[in-house]
């Protein structure tokens, strides 16, 4: 069973809600938006990070966010809407404190992703694309997240939870619900979706040094090479190196 619900009827209830004028965007956020714009030769390049910032502050792409981005960049709200609805990371309804994703592209699906997604739906009591009533969790069916050697893969707030099993998935949710510290397998401790969005907007959270250099699968080949003493070829002497002056230190 493919599991993807094949949707053919699209209604307008899923667009950005332009009647919901709730927002936390104030002078501080606008100043940060201008900072983002200043990073680029053409300010419009800032739109994607600015929308991440909107999400970090408003929990979703808010109407206020759309209007303010449009005004700051001098483009129409239709253009901002066109961008915000093109990319899957932009949520039109509030995401949960923790955004949980399960990859169901072929390798992960075949190796258990489909099962894990169904398990998450049952455990959280929501369907994919929804948020729990208490606002703690939102659930998403993910496409390939570039961790196929760690299949089946789940993500929490875009942090890797590699090589998942049903037990690990249950424990993950239980721990997050209870407020216990949870660590990504190849990342930092889980913060929140909103805080993650802020990092994506270009404002570091200082957690880069948490987590390992690499996960076990990433080291599979290297381990064997170490065992067998295999290395890259040793290059000839520096004088024979093409195109450069001798190394001057």
């Amino acid at each position, binding site marked *: *069973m*493919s599991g993807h619900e*094949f949707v053919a009827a699209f209604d307008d209830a899923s667009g950005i809600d332009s009647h919901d004028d709730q927002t936390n965007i104030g002078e501080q956020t606008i100043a940060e938006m201008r900072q983002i714009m200043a*990073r680029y*030769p053409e300010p419009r*390049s800032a*739109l*994607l*990070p600015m929308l*991440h910032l909107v999400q970090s502050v408003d929990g979703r792409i808010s109407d206020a966010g759309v209007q303010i981005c449009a005004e700051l*960049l001098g483009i129409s709200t239709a253009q901002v809407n*066109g*961008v915000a609805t*093109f*990319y*899957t*990371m932009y949520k039109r309804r509030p995401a949960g404190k923790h955004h949980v994703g399960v990859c*169901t592209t*072929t390798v992960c699906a*075949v*190796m*258990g992703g489909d*099962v894990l997604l*169904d398990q998450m739906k049952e455990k959280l009591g929501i369907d994919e694309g929804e948020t729990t009533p208490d606002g703690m969790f939102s659930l998403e069916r993910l*496409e*390939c*997240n*570039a*961790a*196929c050697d760690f*299949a089946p893969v789940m993500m929490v707030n*875009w942090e*890797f939870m590699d090589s998942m*099993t049903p037990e690990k998935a249950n424990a993950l949710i239980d721990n997050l619900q209870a407020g216990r510290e949870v660590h990504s397998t190849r990342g*930092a401790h889980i913060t929140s979706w909103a805080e993650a969005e802020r*990092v*994506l907007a*270009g404002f570091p*959270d200082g957690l*880069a*040094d948490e*987590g390992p*250099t*690499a996960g076990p699968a*990433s*080291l*599979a*080949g*290297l381990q*064997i*090479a170490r065992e*067998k003493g*295999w290395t*890259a*070829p040793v*290059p000839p002497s520096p004088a024979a*190196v*093409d*195109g*450069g002056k001798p190394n001057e230190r």
Partner: protein
Amino acid sequence: MSVDVLTPTLSDNWDQPDAWKIANYVARGGYEAARKAVGMDPDAIIGLVKDSGLRGRGGAGFPTGVKWSFIPQANPNPKYLVINCDESEPGTCKDVPMLMATPHTLVEGVIISSFAVRAHHAFIYVRGEVLHVIRRLQKAVADAYEAGYLGKGIFGTDYDLDVVVHAGAGAYICGEETALLDSLEGRRGQPRLRPPFPAVAGLYASPTVVNNAESIASVPAIVAKGAAWYKTMGTEKSAGSTLYSVSGHVKRPGQYEAPLGTTYRTLLDLAGGIRAGHQLKFFTPGGSSTPILTPDQLDVKLDYEGVAAAGSILGTKALQTFDETVSVVRTTLRWTEFYKHESCGKCTPCREGSWWLVQTLRNIEQGKGQEGDVEKMLDLCDNVSMKSFCTLADGFVANITSSIKYFREEFEAGYHTPAWELFPYEKSVYFPYERERITVSEGAGE
């Protein structure tokens, strides 16, 4: 000289604790190549990379040095370098661990490459769904600025270079270079008409080079050790080493850095072979967009020419491996659903073709296929093939046509039998689960 079976180059420091930190990177000789490069003639660097035979590692395999040489230096507009870290092709998982483990390798590569094409602004476009990669890149760039390796007058020269780490927001199509440029400009990520080519009018209508992360990360070693050294690895037309990503039903999935031209038999063996009690059924050489191969092709040399001769594409060297428990109908459907979801919608054949093919494949998976569906799908693929705006559609065409070529009877069985009856899905899952407890969602009522 003979070259080892595995040749850790990019991955050589991945087993070092805190390898991503600048101090550790520098202690291993990091940034020496960059320091040397900014004292060289930029055209000499281009020549060096050309000579090395490095080909783009993002799937297309276009010679990197040649791409750099397309930049018209006389054009008055600023030049830009854009690094494509939008790794999203199913099966591909080499750039993410590389960037997480050793982001400075990329930064150093960015410095050398920018200098070569005379760019003063480089953008590292990373898919948004990999938070920790972005953290590490942000930190690496910040630390490089602090160390004087980025910013004004780097390494004490008069060359200025600014680097921006830019997070995407979830769209596979942004891995296509012109769609990436539109996305980087703050627009919908839809591919652009060519000509003009990015080398002439790319980012902000200015000369731009777009390269894959692994390609740029390979540059420091080439500058440090030379083109001749790089060519000792690989084959005549496919020089160097690369990260082969092995995933699926193997004992040891992971990254295997080996010279181009290694066979999958060798890599599969290193990966421990297929899991105990099972046999290889099929694999993709280079991600889901490449025609599948079977055990008959285990000895194909995995370089650009060898795989092409076998009727497929080397692509991103993403070796998704499936054993006999797996239904090809299921894998084809799931990949086609991926393409349908990721289709940008600009052109008719991809947008409508994927919509149609998904429905046909679903019917087949459910055992509700109709006589002639296989011929129809092949004909639809013929109508799509090579006629869409970009190659995303050619990706699902490749997968569907090759899957039918090698496993036609499975698709035809779908005219009467659901795929999960022929190949119970729980058999391919690594962990046991109680099928009765979990309700696998039925296909939505149409």
